[in-house]
């Protein structure tokens, strides 16, 4: 990318921000009080439901963060009073009844043990460690070597289910999006993979707080992630020194020390349901390419002509015609939907099959404005949260008027498609 392209790119980002703000600010709620009252009412209902029975669900999902598996960045330095930490797992002993049983617990490693390794493998200086008496899997604090205070943190994680949680962590980002001065990635002599980046807290450098980070991905699936800044906090603290205190070699020495090993062993296992049988840490993600749509095609009843098709990943659609008019058939194949099972199958025409799969059949009017459109759905989910939902419409496009009285597929046919074993065998990436 040429210098010119790069500056154009940054320019576009700024302009986009301006346009988004002006567009967003142009919306005004008709009656804000009504929204507040509605929110309060929903909140009260939610509380009642929770008191009645709590079995996970969306609230728990929001309340329980990444847990023991690497699902995002680690907690910021300080680990509290930032938006970063609010989604982190609740502290032990709190939030009774909100922990989601299928999510791993936050590790119970004494922060002082983490701090000890951190201090032992960095040059001498003074440290103020946050929450030294707590337990968890990351440690943060402020380090001072006499040349200015600097926030430093280290987090230990097990690699989760996806490339996003593992390999992607040790690949250098695209310079087109993120401003950084230097990034290297590669293998260390024992075969572990490492990325070292010298970047900025704000990718647009509107504040020039430097953010240096080294991440090690071990062969046995652990991440050791160390971050440092040239300010006493990631955000909201002035720059205290020209560069963060530790050199990249020092950070590399810190992440590669064997002293982390006993602590890594204390990280909770990734729950078995998140792993594909026989494979460690490489279980299913999204279906590949147009495999959903292609498979849908193989499962159609005889006598239907496909006149249009599309979709990718979890989603696919076909427009079919049996000679009596176009009918849109849509499908979503989704993993890990257990958290919304109660919402989806808590009411309506729901049956549970002997293997535990739930099946809900729905007939409802279309919702995209096409006149006379009906929308039939078979919505299914395995006990593990694998959901296949197939819908058919009596039109070729939801916003267009009905072309026929009923969809080209019956509810029973939709159900048979949704329950087909092929969906569980789709190629995934």
């Amino acid at each position, binding site marked *: 990318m040429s210098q010119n392209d790069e500056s154009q790119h940054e320019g576009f980002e700024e302009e986009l921000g301006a346009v988004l703000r002006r*567009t*967003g600010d*142009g919306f005004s709620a008709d009656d804000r009080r009504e929204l507040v009252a509605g*929110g309060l009412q929903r*909140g009260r209902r939610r509380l009642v439901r929770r008191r009645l029975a709590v079995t996970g669900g969306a609230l728990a999902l929001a309340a329980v963060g990444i847990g023991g598996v690497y699902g995002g*960045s680690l907690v910021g330095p300080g680990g509290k009073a930032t938006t970063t930490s609010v989604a982190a797992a609740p502290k032990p002993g709190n939030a009774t009844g909100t922990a989601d049983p299928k999510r791993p617990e936050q590790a119970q490693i004494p922060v002082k043990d983490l701090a000890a390794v951190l201090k032992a493998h960095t040059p001498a200086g003074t440290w103020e460690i946050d929450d030294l008496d707590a337990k968890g899997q990351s440690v943060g604090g402020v380090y001072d070597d006499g040349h200015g205070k600097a926030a430093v943190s280290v987090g230990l994680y097990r690699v989760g289910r996806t490339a*996003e949680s593992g390999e992607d*962590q040790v690949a250098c980002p695209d310079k087109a999006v993120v401003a950084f001065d230097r990034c290297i990635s590669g293998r260390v002599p024992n075969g572990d993979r490492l990325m070292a980046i010298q970047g900025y807290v704000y990718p647009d450098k509107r504040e020039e707080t430097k953010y240096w980070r080294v991440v090690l991905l071990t062969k046995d699936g652990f991440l050791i992630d160390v971050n440092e800044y040239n300010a006493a906090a990631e955000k909201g603290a002035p720059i205290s020194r020209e560069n963060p205190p530790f050199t990249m070699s020092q950070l590399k020495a810190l992440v590669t020390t064997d002293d982390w090993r006993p602590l890594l062993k204390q990280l909770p296992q990734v729950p078995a349901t998140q792993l594909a049988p026989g494979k460690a840490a490489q279980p299913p993600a999204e279906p590949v390419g147009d495999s959903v749509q292609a498979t849908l095609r193989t499962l159609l009843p005889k006598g239907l002509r496909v006149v249009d098709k599309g979709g990718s990943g979890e989603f696919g659609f076909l427009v079919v015609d049996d000679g009596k008019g176009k009918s849109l058939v849509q499908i979503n194949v989704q993993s890990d939907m257990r958290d919304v099972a109660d919402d989806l199958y808590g009411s309506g025409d729901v049956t549970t099959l002997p293997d535990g799969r739930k099946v809900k059949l729905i007939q409802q009017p279309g919702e995209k404005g096409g006149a006379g459109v009906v929308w039939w759905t078979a919505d299914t989910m395995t006990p593990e949260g694998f959901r296949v939902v197939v819908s058919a419409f009596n039109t070729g*496009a939801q916003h267009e008027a009905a072309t026929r009285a009923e969809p080209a597929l019956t509810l029973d046919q939709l159900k048979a498609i949704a329950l087909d074993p092929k969906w569980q065998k789709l190629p995934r990436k």
Partner: protein
Amino acid sequence: MRKSRADEFLEFASARTGHLFRSACLLTSGDTHLAEDLAQETLGRMYAQWGRMARIGNPAAYAQTVLVRTFLSHQRRRSATERPLGELPDRAPDDGGDPALRIALLDALAGLAPKDRAVVVLRYWEDRSIEETADALHVSSAAVRTRSVRALAKLRERLGGSIAEFATR
């Protein structure tokens, strides 16, 4: 006397609802009915957790995170609405400015995958860092970067040079 949970919550909600609604309008690319629904759902979730809010340093920012997660889970749940139809937004913002480009922007947003749209809204409307965006979405920062590149390229293609003229007006 200590304020009741409802009073405290109402104070918070009155101050934040307008912004939540506007964010929701961008997330839904102009579907104001859905945006109202999402704003209420977000407030409901906030209320249900209000007892624990003392531990949350910044409930306003947290509410935005809840909104985005509510939106994404809504998108996954609905399932039958993900085929991009190129529909015009329900209602364009009405502050007397040039509506054409705003409609173009909302239309361009509608062409993005929901998660990409969430990245754009968090990064450029909420002004969150890559790391914060990653946290809000429960994905890695690398994933946020990938999604940003893709979304920006797509928006740029759809909006072309007209955005510059509009932004500086």
